[in-house]
């Protein structure tokens, strides 16, 4: 493995790992707050128990997210010092703001997790709201920095060096809005569906447990609404791509030949050698319509660009298909639940519905990982689109396989432990039934209580 590939692998692995915990840090606090707010409104203790249970899971996930995020902020320099030397003055700003959002999130999460008996219920809920807000703000700032790598603005290029720097213009880059909205919605959808899946699984075994029913309703509401909205933000991003990153769009769609009235290809296998995408289902005019909202628009194909500026087409195309497919599953399920909620004022109750929710539990996370693959691999060979190649940014440090393997093993170990700890929490769920006689009091084991 050469050092550039090792550095890219370490970065990809670190991001893929961190994103799971980062999105939990964004969406779990919102769900905890909804549960706690329901408790304050209804005084139904089940909601309080639910908020406390979700808070425990959040505590574990947030801690791993905090430390893996620290690793990433250092890895920017450990792996890509030339990128940081070049881009730091332009795009360091959102990272500085993210620093403060992270501070606020950590401070108020401390109050939320350990302050149940120390602050008033309203102050406690407010602390939770601060966590949810600053989690979302963190995500916005970090994704703005990534959006800049896709559509760099806020400087003039003179002799390969940036002059006339404007960090605010850099933050307002063309991809910023689309990418941040897409990521935030993805975070709520992924976590909502994952949590809904866990509670649906437990409901299948214990059909009348109100604890899981309440949990399922909140998680599906959060995940469902965002899953239904997600295609709109995807459409916005598609248009930005068509204008600013036509190579990435062409790779995503497996679109080799420049065409007027280009078809949308679903599935299929792009072959760079023969410059064709085989076995795809083609929807006439689909791509032109999506990219430019005009069935007769010309969509540039990969053939219009030098071969050395193509990203790995097959990876980008397939990752994109996976992302869209997973998103569709979630959206359809959300619509099913929404129709039922509209007509019957209740979620569907059938075993088939619950099984579908269980099936779709990992879909949001699959979509997020696939979506980041599209964004990052689709930008190659550039680290800053059109300005700096990834190969120019890498550290001269030799032997980069060693840190790559070390961090991979470390993160695998953490992943196993986290899954095991969460599974332990889940298997020990409270039981709450409509008839009080059936209720089983469970001891609330809390740290050092």
């Amino acid at each position, binding site marked *: 493995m050469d050092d550039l590939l090792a550095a890219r692998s370490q970065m990809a692995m670190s991001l893929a790992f961190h994103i799971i915990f980062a999105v939990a840090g964004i969406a779990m606090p919102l769900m905890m707050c909804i549960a706690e707010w329901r408790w304050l409104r209804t005084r139904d203790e089940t909601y309080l128990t639910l908020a406390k249970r979700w808070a425990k899971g959040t505590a574990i996930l947030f*801690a791993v997210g905090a430390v893996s995020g620290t690793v990433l902020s250092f890895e920017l*320099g450990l792996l890509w010092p030339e990128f940081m030397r*070049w881009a730091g003055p332009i795009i*360091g700003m959102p990272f500085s703001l993210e620093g403060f959002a992270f501070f606020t999130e*950590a401070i108020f*999460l401390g*109050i939320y997790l350990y302050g149940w008996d120390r602050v008033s219920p309203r102050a406690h809920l407010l602390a939770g709201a601060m966590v949810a807000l600053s989690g979302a703000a963190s995500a916005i700032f970090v994704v703005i920095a990534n959006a800049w790598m896709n559509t760099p603005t806020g400087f003039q290029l003179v002799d390969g060096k940036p002059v006339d720097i404007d960090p605010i213009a850099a933050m307002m880059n063309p991809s910023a809005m689309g990418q941040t909205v897409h990521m935030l919605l993805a975070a709520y959808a992924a976590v909502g569906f994952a949590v809904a899946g866990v509670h649906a699984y437990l409901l299948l075994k214990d059909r009348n447990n109100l604890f899981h029913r309440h949990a399922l309703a909140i998680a599906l509401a959060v995940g469902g609404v965002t899953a239904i909205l997600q295609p709109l933000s995807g459409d916005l991003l598609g248009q930005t791509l068509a204008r600013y990153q036509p190579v990435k769009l062409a790779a995503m769609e497996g679109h080799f030949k420049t065409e007027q009235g280009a078809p949308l290809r679903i599935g299929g296998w792009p072959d760079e050698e023969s410059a064709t995408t085989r076995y795809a289902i083609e929807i006439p005019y689909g791509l032109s319509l999506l990219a430019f909202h005009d069935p007769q628009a010309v969509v540039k194909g990969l053939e219009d660009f030098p071969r050395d500026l193509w990203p790995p087409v097959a990876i980008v195309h397939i990752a994109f298909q996976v992302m869209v497919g997973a998103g569709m599953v979630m959206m359809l399920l959300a619509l099913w639940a929404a129709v039922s909620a509209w007509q019957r004022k209740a979620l569907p109750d059938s075993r088939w519905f619950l099984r579908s929710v269980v099936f779709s539990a990992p879909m949001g996370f699959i979509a997020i990982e696939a979506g980041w693959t599209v964004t990052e691999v689709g930008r190659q060979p550039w680290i800053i689109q059109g300005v700096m190649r990834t190969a120019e940014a890498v550290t001269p440090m030799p032997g980069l396989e060693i840190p790559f393997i070390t961090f991979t093993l470390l993160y695998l170990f953490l992943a196993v432990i986290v899954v095991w700890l969460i599974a332990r929490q889940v298997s020990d769920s409270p039981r709450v039934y409509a008839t009080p006689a059936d209720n089983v009091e469970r001891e609330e084991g809390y740290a*050092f209580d």
Partner: protein
Amino acid sequence: MPSIEILLAGAMMVALTFYALMGGADFGGGVWDLFAFGPRKRAQRELIAEAIGPIWEANHVWLILVIVILFTAFPPAFAAVATALHIPLTLMLIGIVLRGSAFTFRSYDKRTDDAQRRWGRVFSIASLITPIWLGVIVGAISSGKVRGESPTTIDGFVVSWFAPFPFAVGLFALALFAFLAAVYLTLAAKDESLREDFRLRALASAIAVGVMALIVFLLSASGAPVIRERLGQSWWTWPLQIATGVFAVCAIAALWKRRFRLARFCAAAQAALILWGWGVAQYPYLVVPDLTISNAAAPAITLRLVWWALIAGAVLLFPSFYYLFRVFKRGGADAQIGSEHP
């Protein structure tokens, strides 16, 4: 009015000082978890966990703040440090990851002794190792061996930090963090005997801090000649050194007399002065000898924006921190001690 790059370098020092005084003490708590002994071993560990549980993540963010100011306002310095010190930085990160996750895993794992001991060991060993690497990095930055240009040989990635001076600074940082933690824990302790345990630990580690300070000073002659020269010859050095010494002696005396609030104040002032003594001796260098505050600074517009972001952030941050500490660090021992020593 100092120039804006100097203000930002100062802000970085302020963040680093908070990291040492708060985050450093959390690592020090882990060290005392590792060295818990005697009849109240378990109570000591529970007190440490209770003291750092709600606050360690917030305290940890000071380090992130130092890094983001560095890479936004002084990108060449960040690039140089991250390249030449790749190995110790990676080792420190592994320590940070294991400390934080093991601490959390212990809080949420089974209450059985086995599970608790397993995570406790990972947490406490990582708490011991991480400050050493942090000190090694600081020592290497001062040594004059991390250059503006990237190293070109494999040796170049090792020589700047693999030397006695950086490791002495590492042990100095460890002693200082352990000392701070022990002093703070005397105030967190709710019963008299537990407080005595940490009082003795604070006194012992105060001696370790003194010994390590002397060793670092002696080694700096060859290990960090530029810094040493400034510490030896500049006009400001004696008032600063004397003030540090006075607070060190006062901290010990206050511990001896069981004036724990006073001891906490003196210990924190001592630690802050040690850091600022180093910071002033570094001036105007960020990375001795090639990168200075002015030649590594980003364009003025970036510096101005970061400065305003820091001010806006501080307005949000300090009240929030005050609230966090008021919720968790008031009452209990603090109040009792307050009434004993009005």
